[in-house]
């Protein structure tokens, strides 16, 4: 297999790049492309972010009147709200020129979760006990070692490459084909959470803008390209070549993983006044955290 899902992705990329080059999304200077700026936010100590919030440092909002109509307008107008948020200090926002579309996909994913993924995951969790599900998650995670190892390599994180290769050898043998994460438990070799999106960030490429992908959830332009690239690095695609079998295995992995995370999305929703904005920001802050590591 391998081929057809990739076509879907490339189609998506095509649509996106078409949008990019026609819409002039980048016409407005984006505050988010500057990665060095962001590394300040989380790495600095508590006092740093304080300075921006001292009374009197408020900046004029320029043309952005905050009218809801304005903010929903076409690509040329976007970025204004992000700019004003960037002034707050303690975290800029990811540009979201596709917000109306993203909000629609957010709703789609929300329903997908509550109507299908959650009930299926809960039913599955009743049949398969938690330790077994953790083992299965470990198995799939061990399988995609090349993605993490190559992502480490492309960032020059040689220690990470070594750890990943060693983990794979140890877990595949002593860990019974990867079902047990003995490398972490007994050798203190933790999983290196690296992916191609982080590689691109390391190379100085900005996130572009926010995309809430149907089925896949929050991502950025950069993250989506990375995800597509990873389709070539995923051994699963070479091992299971039949399209439907491949989709089946991936779905099973997804259900298994979700069954271990039921409640997380609900708790985000319960805590949020605007779940869409909350998820978008949580994704963004989390990615910065991953990239900085």
């Amino acid at each position: 297999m391998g081929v057809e899902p990739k076509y879907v992705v490339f189609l998506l990329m095509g649509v996106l790049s078409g949008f990019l080059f026609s819409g002039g999304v980048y016409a407005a200077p984006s505050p988010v492309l500057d990665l060095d700026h962001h590394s300040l936010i989380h790495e600095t100590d508590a006092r740093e972010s304080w300075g921006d919030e001292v009374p009197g440092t408020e900046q004029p909002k320029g043309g952005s009147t905050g009218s809801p109509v304005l903010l929903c307008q076409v690509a040329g107008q976007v970025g204004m709200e992000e700019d004003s948020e960037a002034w707050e200090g303690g975290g800029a926002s990811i540009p979201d020129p596709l917000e109306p579309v993203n909000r629609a996909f957010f709703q789609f994913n929300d329903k997908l979760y509550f109507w299908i993924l959650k009930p299926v995951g809960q039913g599955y969790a009743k049949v398969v006990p938690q330790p077994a599900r953790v083992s299965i998650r470990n198995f799939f995670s061990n399988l995609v070692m090349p993605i993490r190892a190559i992502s480490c390599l492309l960032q020059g994180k040689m220690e990470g490459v070594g750890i990943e290769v060693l983990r794979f050898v140890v877990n595949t043998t002593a860990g019974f084909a990867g079902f047990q994460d003995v490398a972490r438990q007994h050798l203190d070799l933790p999983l290196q959470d690296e992916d191609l999106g982080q590689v691109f960030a390391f190379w100085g490429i900005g996130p572009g803008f926010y995309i809430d992908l149907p089925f896949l959830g929050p991502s950025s332009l950069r993250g989506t390209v990375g995800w597509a690239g990873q389709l070539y690095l995923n051994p699963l695609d070479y091992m299971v070549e039949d399209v439907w079998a491949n989709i089946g295995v991936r779905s099973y992995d997804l259900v298994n993983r979700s069954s271990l995370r039921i409640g997380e999305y609900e708790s985000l929703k319960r805590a949020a006044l605007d779940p869409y904005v909350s998820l978008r920001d949580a994704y963004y802050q989390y990615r910065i955290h991953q990239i900085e590591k």
Partner: protein
Amino acid sequence: MRKGFRVVPIFLLMGFLASTALAGEPTEAIQKTTDKIIAIVTDPALKGPAKSEEKAKLIRQAVDERFDWEEMSRRTLARHWQDRTDAQKKEFMVLFAELLEATYLDKVEGYSGEKVIYEGERSDGEYAVVAVKIVTQKETEIPVKYRMKKIKNEWRVYDISITGVSLINNYRKQFNSIITRSSFDSLMEKLEAKVKREE
């Protein structure tokens, strides 16, 4: 192999000694509150739905002692804070504190023997960051950072970040989005509705 097992407890002990030696006041403060909350959550006398209100009250008290609601409110509203009257600030603070308490309760209530590991702190006398790692039963590790400020000789929490996601930054984005799109009053309405629903 057998020898290896005997070495492990010694390392654990050494690690424990090292961490207590490094831990300063901010970590102690966090540890005190965390232990208190774990004691409440795991107290068999407070089990069952009949006792859930009492349990929530006790947790709220423990959290109240440690969290600085005013600092949190000011940081969350950011530039919208100084536009508010004192009455509005107070009203907001009360509601936001209730929302945060509910959020915190929500997270704590599902406690099922997760281990809390204190990983060190950074402090410059007035501000501090305490790093904690929570190890779940599902073999996942959740890094948590408490940002603290010393107020009247007490270390108070003004932000928590979980896997790099700052709670205050997250709420700031949401609140700013609501205020710039509609108004502060509409934010208050939404907050009120949210807090009511949580009860």
